[in-house]
Structure formats: structure tokens, C-alpha cells
């Protein structure tokens, strides 16, 4: 399978803080990849560089072979990368439907003059956009909520609406920043199913940051672990669960001693070995 996103030596420095340090990373087309790590590990910074909100201090990001460094967020969206936010950032005083319609902005062609004259093509485009938006709301599980203001939706529905809005940009790669944060177990399960459907039914590649280990281990093809901005491990969920560096990062140095033999017994993953510090 071809890679959809690739970074080489990607770094981000904020003054004296090296938030992300020389990360090499690849996502395959139609895979579900997760980025995990303790708080402050640089996960969201990494996301923000991919989404264009931050410019990398060093290194390269390429999306399907196109260099993304310095490309503006809206252009990255047009190229086919969409995202959700860790702290929900919906357009709270707009209806759910309008939120999704804003997501379609870069795919609609109506010019300013065309909108004023309301030419037949603009009217048709607008009608199709609305139909599509209603479909997307149904897809994520928000039927009949079109006219509700985003801020009046329950928390879980707001997360779903964010996904619908991101889908409206017609992405190939969807970045989800802690999609199940703050959810109860039922909501988490439902959202995990939704993420699986995104790949199965919409052919998307999914890249998510997540703290719920059950979610990460349940749906990911590949898991990458960041700690203090450095990639410390990479591999299948099975490999990551036993990786000593990961256990150390999460639980402290002493904790890695006990499970280490078990990890060795399970066969130390080759790709992770290079990431060991």
C-alpha cells in the first residue's frame, strides 16, 4: 500500500522548548493510525503541523507526495486533509446544518456575484450541498438535528457534528484529535464504531490522537508513541502494549523492568527497535 502522509525529521520549536523532535512517520492509505503519548508529549503540535496551523521548524511533511510545509490551513483542507479539535471548536451560534455547510466551503464554486444574482447553477449547487449536509448529519448519527444550534447540542453530539463538518470537506485523510475525550463508555463505543465506518464506507484514512487505550488498541492498524516530542515506539497495538519504552513513558522507569522479559518473549518488534532511545 502507498503512503498517504509522510514526515521526515519533523521538528517544532517554541522558543527553548522542542515540542516535536525529528519525527519520521508514515501513514498508509486506508489505514487507521493512532498517535499516543503522555500529556505534553507533542501530539497536538504534531497534528497542528500536519493541518497547517503551525509551520515546522525543521523537517518535511508530504501528503501524497506534495510538500505541506508552509501551506495555509485552508489550502491543506482543499488538498484533502480534514480535522477535528481536542477542545470542540464548532461554530456554536450556527445551526448544525450550517456548520456542515461551512465545511463544504472549499468544494463549492459559487462566486460572490453568482450568489447575489442567484444563478441557476448556484441554486442547484446550494440545493445539492444541503442534501449532502443532511446526509452527512444522518451518517454521523444526528438525524433531524439540522436546525439546532451547535452549542445547544449535547456534548457527544457536538463531537459527532465536528466529524460531520470535517467530512463535508471531502477529505482523504481525517485527523481526529481525541475524538472520545470526555465521553462515557457507551458514547465511546458508538464513536469507535463510527470511526470504523468512516474507513469501511467512505474509504478514508484515519489518523487519531487518543487517550482511551481501549479505543486505540481496538481500532488502530499502527500506533505511534511520542514522549517529550520524540518518537519512542511504533508498531501494531499488540507490539506497543508490550514495548518497554512505552511502559516506561507512561508508568515510570521502574515499571518497565518487570514486563520487559515478557515483551522480549513476544518478539521485540523490529520497527520499534530503531525508535528506542
Amino acid at each position, binding site marked *: 500500500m502507498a503512503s498517504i502522509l509522510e514526515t521526515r525529521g519533523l521538528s517544532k520549536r517554541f522558543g527553548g522548548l522542542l515540542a516535536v523532535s525529528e519525527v519520521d512517520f508514515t501513514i498508509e492509505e486506508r489505514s487507521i493510525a493512532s498517535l499516543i503519548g503522555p500529556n505534553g508529549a507533542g501530539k497536538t503540535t504534531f497534528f497542528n503541523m500536519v493541518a497547517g496551523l503551525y509551520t515546522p521548524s525543521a523537517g518535511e511533511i508530504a501528503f501524497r507526495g506534495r510538500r505541506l510545509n508552509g501551506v495555509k490551513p485552508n489550502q491543506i483542507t482543499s488538498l484533502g486533509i480534514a480535522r477535528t479539535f481536542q477542545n470542540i471548536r464548532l461554530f456554536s451560534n450556527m445551526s448544525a446544518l450550517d456548520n456542515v455547510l*461551512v465545511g463544504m466551503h472549499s468544494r463549492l464554486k459559487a462566486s460572490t456575484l453568482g450568489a447575489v444574482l442567484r444563478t441557476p447553477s448556484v441554486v442547484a449547487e446550494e440545493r445539492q450541498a444541503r442534501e449532502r449536509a443532511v446526509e452527512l448529519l444522518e451518517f454521523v448519527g444526528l438525524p433531524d438535528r439540522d436546525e439546532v444550534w451547535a452549542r445547544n447540542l449535547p456534548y457527544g453530539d457536538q463531537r459527532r457534528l465536528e466529524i460531520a463538518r470535517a467530512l463535508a470537506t471531502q477529505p482523504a485523510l481525517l485527523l481526529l484529535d481525541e475524538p472520545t475525550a470526555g465521553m462515557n463508555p457507551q458514547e465511546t463505543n458508538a464513536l469507535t464504531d463510527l470511526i470504523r465506518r468512516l474507513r469501511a464506507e467512505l474509504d478514508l484514512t484515519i489518523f487519531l490522537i487518543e487517550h482511551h487505550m481501549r479505543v486505540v488498541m481496538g481500532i488502530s492498524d499502527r500506533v505511534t508513541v511520542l514522549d517529550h516530542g520524540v518518537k519512542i515506539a511504533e508498531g501494531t497495538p499488540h507490539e506497543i502494549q508490550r514495548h518497554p519504552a512505552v511502559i516506561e513513558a507512561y508508568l515510570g522507569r521502574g515499571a518497565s523492568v518487570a514486563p520487559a522479559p515478557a515483551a522480549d518473549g513476544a518478539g521485540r518488534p523490529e520497527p520499534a527497535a530503531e525508535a528506542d532511545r
Partner: protein
Amino acid sequence: MDDRRSTPDDRPAGAGVPAREGAGSDGRPTDGVAGGMAVAAADTVSRDVPEARRATASQRWAELSEQRRNRVLFAVFAIFVLAYPLIDRGLGWNRMGSMNPILVFVLLALGLNIVVGFAGLLDLGYAAFFAIGGYTVAFLTAPQSPLVQRGFQTDFWVALIVAFVVAAVFGVILGAPTLRLRGDYLAIVTLAFGEIVPRTFLNLEGLTNGSKGMNPIGRPHAGDVELLASDQVPWYYLILAILAFSIFVINRLHGSRLGRAWMAMREDEIAAASMGIDLVKTKLLAFSLGASFSGFGGAMYASMLQFIDPFQFDFSISIMLLAMVILGGIGNLWGVLFGGLLMGAFNFIWVESAANWIRSLSTNPGLGFLAAVDLNNSKLMLFGGALVLMMLLRPEGIFPSAQRKAELKGARAAIPVTVPGIEESLHDARQGEQVAGGGR
């Protein structure tokens, strides 16, 4: 639900351009009607619909009847506006001379509403564009202009279009340096522009005749018949026509892809950029389109007064326009229209009437001290007091958008679905937002 856009076409009929009816605040006025009826009908058929669903149905029904109410209100308003000159003469009000500038200010407020209300960019120097519009026409038509002195006098109608375009261009020029600024910082920079522009006109004496001003300024005409300053009724209808045209255009913009982009940008710039909205282009379009309507306003105003000088465009104009926008209901085209009319009437008519009334009272025995009271001098104080009262009693404006009202009801239907803990935090967040929103 698919027929959202296939409602009967809302092309303007005659002078009633705003025949799109009053509920058009959110740019898709009639959309809810068909859907609302369908849901309401379904509701009466099957009694066992879930609670939440029934709530939205009844809510939509309420919305529908409100739309009807709004339509009636709007028809009455339109008839009143169209027949105003007759009413004015019939009742002996003699206020035509005040109505015309009021309408110009309403037009300006609508333009400012694009920038402040739709796009959320606080502009404290909007009078600058008003001045640019007026001076463009003066420069093209007044005898003091070096251009006219060299024999290039322009027809008023051409000058009106040029003023529209020039104001739009200056919207981009003055908007560009502010692109990275938000909130307070943006307000300060626009405030500075509002001071710089009239001062520039004051000091460019060779071009603008400085403080002596320019006159006469080109007049609208039909063939050889020119509209004189004393022809107040034709002026009224001319400004009304331009106002109606502007409302039509602004309403369509609001309901379009661009209008949504403006609102999204106002709500959250980072999320908007991440959804594919080009912030630079969208902001500049807001500044430019907002300014262009003040180009119309400035042109009409200068030509109506037949005179222009830099002192007509001071800071208080920007503030009054902003007050019109906020008072009427920020972001709501119809609210701003009414807010503008009210503030205009206050500024140009009511204070003066009240002052005269108090003076007439002073002839009564024992009330002689009232002769010393002149309300015209305390206009700004009254104005400020009214604003403070308004913000305390009804921060969302006189006519908040129908959407907002509907949603306040809809909130109750949505809450029971949430987990208790989250519901509380959401509720708190919402309260906080309302307070913050009211401050805007």
C-alpha cells in the same frame, strides 16, 4: 427536507425589493415553512412520536406562525415607508428633510453590519468610507475639483457607481493592514483610520478645497431634469430605491456561501481556516463589500446636501452607526434596519421635537426655568443613556434574529438527552457565552 431551496422564487416585485419578508435574518427565510408544515402534519397524525421530536415540531410550528406575523408586520412597514411622503404631508409633520438623511444613515448601518455583524470585525472608523464615497463624487463633479477644472466633469450616475467601486477598493486598502488583528486591536486601528481619512481630506487642500469644502456637487437627473435639494420627495424615493437594492444584495450575500464563511469566521477563525475558508480573502471581502455600500451612502449624502467638508465625517458618526447596528440586533439585517430608523429618528427628529415641546412648556406660569433647558445640547447624553438602558435591558438588540429566539426554546428539548454532569457544565458554558455574547 430536500425542498429547502425550492420555495417559490423570491425575486423582488417592483419597489418592494425586500419582499423577501421580515424573517430573512438568517438568509433563508421561507425554508423552514415547508419543513415545519410537514413535521407539524406528521405530528398530528402520529401521536406516539418521541418527546424530543415533538418538541422540535411544535417549535417549528411556533416559528412558522411567527414568520407569518413577521410577514404581516413587514407588509405594514413597507406600505408605511412607501407612503411616508403622503402621510408626512397629510399629517403636517414636515419631516421629509429629516427622513432623507435618516435613510442614508440606515444604508450606512447596513454596510457596517456586514463588517461588524456578519464577519465580526469591530470597525470604529466606518465614517472613513462614508467620507471616501462623498469625496469621490465631489471630486468627480464639484467645480473646486482640479479634475472638473480641467474639464472632466462626470455625470452623477457615473460618479455614484465610481464611488461604490472606490469605497470598495479602499475597503481592501484599509482592511489589509488589519488582517492579523482581532477584537480590541482591530478596533483601535480602524479608529485611527476613521481619524486619518477626514484629516487627509482636510489637508489635501489642492484636491478637496480643505476646510472650505466643496459645492455644488453633481445632482441626480433624469434627462435634463435635475433633482434639486428642495425636491425632498423624489430624493426620498431615490434613496429608498438604493436602500432597497442594497438590502436585496446584502440579504443574498448573507444567505450565500460567503455569508456562511463570514459567520464561521466570526465564530472561530481557526476552525474556519481548518474548514477550508481563506481568512484573508473572506475578511477583505467583508471590508470591501461593507465599505462599498457606504460609498453609495456618501455619494447620496453629499449630493443631497450639495456640499461636503471634512467635518461631516467625525468620530461620532462612526459611533452612531455602530450604535444603530448594536441597538437593532447585531448581525440581523432587519434588526439593523429598524435600529437605524429608530436611532435616526432619535437623532434627527425626536430630540428636536422634545426640545421644542419643553420650550413651549416654559411659557406656562411657574415653568419659566424650562426656557433655559435645551435638549439639543444634551443629545449625546440622552443618546448615551438610551444605549446604557438598552444594553442592560435587552443586550441582544431590539430585534434579535428569529433563529436566536427559536434556539432559546430549542435548548430545552436538547438538554434532557445529556449526561447530568455534562449538562451542568454545558449549561454553565452556555450562560457564560450568553454573557460574553451580550457584551459584543
